[in-house]
């Protein structure tokens, strides 16, 4: 069974059609990349998959892990194993990273009927992931993403990915704004997440990321539809030729 199936998805935002019949199928354990020019609808797709309010699914279906999830609340999607790494993670002063991560993990465990992780184990896990991602553990005491640099915010997204261990990770431009070192750290994190069952949908504007995280398939999104799919070599072709030959 596919982990994710998007069938002929049409989505309106503020009364404007943004996704115009999008199809996508992800098998468990695969890594797919979606590339496309700015404004083509990449973040819209990511947000719809994560259940963000304000996106009107006009037709089509999203099937996640065997269930139609068109109307599913974001928390239920997360509990079912979907994770979105945000293009622009918000800052939430007053809620510490620690409190936030613990609440997330507790909720996910509760939804799966698993025992709550004890506080000591939890701390150990978080600290070791933080160390792998070059995040100073002091960040745990600060507000969620509060005062973080762009790179720190992206690393915090990957920390959550590794902590929460979803089935599907949707990464929305996780590479943008990262220098080479940070990109390597983030890519290492994602590669560690990859497994026979863990699945990744990478959204990116540049093919650079794909040198670090090698995808099984590449799709080009333009004006709300996937206009071309291929293997890794498609990304290289895009790098050389740009998007224009596909969108005209």
């Amino acid at each position, binding site marked *: 069974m596919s982990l994710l199936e998007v069938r002929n998805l049409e989505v309106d935002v503020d009364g404007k059609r943004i996704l115009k019949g999008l199809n996508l199928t992800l098998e468990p354990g695969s890594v797919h990349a979606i590339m496309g020019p700015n404004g083509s609808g990449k973040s819209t797709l990511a947000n719809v998959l*994560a*259940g963000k309010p304000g996106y009107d699914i006009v037709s089509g279906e999203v099937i996640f892990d065997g269930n139609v999830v068109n109307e599913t609340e*974001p928390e239920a999607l*997360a509990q079912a194993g979907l994770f979105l790494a*945000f293009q622009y993670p*918000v800052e*939430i002063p*007053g809620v510490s990273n620690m409190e*936030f991560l613990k609440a997330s993990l507790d*909720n996910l465990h509760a939804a799966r009927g698993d025992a709550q992780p004890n506080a000591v184990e939890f701390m150990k896990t978080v600290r070791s992931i933080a160390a792998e991602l070059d995040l100073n553990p002091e960040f745990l005491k600060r507000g969620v993403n509060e005062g973080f640099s762009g790179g720190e915010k992206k690393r915090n997204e990957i920390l959550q990915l590794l902590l929460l261990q979803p089935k599907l990770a949707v990464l929305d431009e996780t590479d943008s704004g990262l220098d080479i070192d940070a990109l390597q750290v983030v890519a290492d994190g994602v590669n560690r997440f990859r497994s026979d069952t863990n699945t990744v949908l990478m959204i990116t504007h540049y093919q650079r990321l794909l040198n670090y995280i090698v995808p099984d398939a590449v799709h080009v999104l333009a004006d709300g539809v996937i206009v071309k799919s291929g293997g890794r070599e498609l990304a290289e072709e895009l790098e050389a030729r740009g998007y224009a030959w596909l969108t005209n």
Partner: protein
Amino acid sequence: MVDELDTLLAQLELPPLLLADDVRARLRASSVAQTTRESWKYTQLKKFVPNDVAVSEPTISADGPPAAVVSRLSTQPSDGLNRHLGDADSSSRFPLADLALLIAGDCLIVDIPSDRETDLSITFHPGINVPVLIRVAARATLRLQETVVASEFANHSLYLLIDEDASVEHARTAFTSHCNHWSLSQAVLGVRSSYKLQQYLGGGNQRRYETQIILDGRESNASLTGAYRVHSGGHLDQQITVEHRAPDTLSEQRFHGIGAGKGSAIFNGRIHIHPDSPRSNAQLSNRNLALHPDAIINTKPELEIYTDDVKCAHGATVGQLSADSLFYLQSRGIALPAARQMLCRAFIRECIEGPLADIASEALLDEITTAVASNESL
């Protein structure tokens, strides 16, 4: 107000306070002016005119003598005190403080010695409290905690005179809800002195807290932080004035409030930068969350600037929880009601600090938990 005052004053056998005539004259003049003032638009002054004149003695405890010396106005020469008890220019804004001076006929004076640290706590009681004047000597450090036991009616005023290079941290709470409760807190800051206020309040039947900060000495600075909530049927009116009267003075204000029920929260933050106060820096931020559809929140920053070369920033907002923040929490598996709770609590916690933080958290956050749980339409 004027009629009520006349009746009241006629009934009173006023004690022979040295200042009585001055105060009485001020009171008459100002009470007339007050009733027409914009600042009394939302709160009824007459609710704070007492039915009787029960006078209470505030409880003051210091960390052991000779840490602080408490004396009474009647035992002090009066020269110069008039100026202290209600700053000359501004006293007319506080007729209720003058009323208390008249009725109490006395004033408690606390002298904080120089060059050392003192901890002081003050508890105000129901009725008209004897006004308290705290004189903080040069280079002293004072940590002051203020609480109030207000049952039906309370009036209390506190004057702080902060000398050169002294610093004062003042934490106060008031959460009793069924009372008509009026308070003045006035601080006059000398050269390079600092004043830090942490103020945590709930709504009363009518509660009005007037705060006046006078940055009188150059390089003095004040930092005011507060959080508040108003429950159904509650009323809370905060009037805060910061006067920059000297060069290189700094004031920062950060207040977060929650309308948790069908009640009124009024926040008036006035910044007044006087002539000849170059390089003054005044910052004010007041943010409010309306957690109840019928919550009434009035917030109004006022600026009067009479010097060039100043920095001034103020913002006042009334809003709902951020949809993006809610989505972020939900996308990590946190259910919507819990996500709302987290954001509301965070909003208040941003402004909770200092020695009364635990009391403030408990009083403010419990109410919020209930309010959020009972309102699905945030």
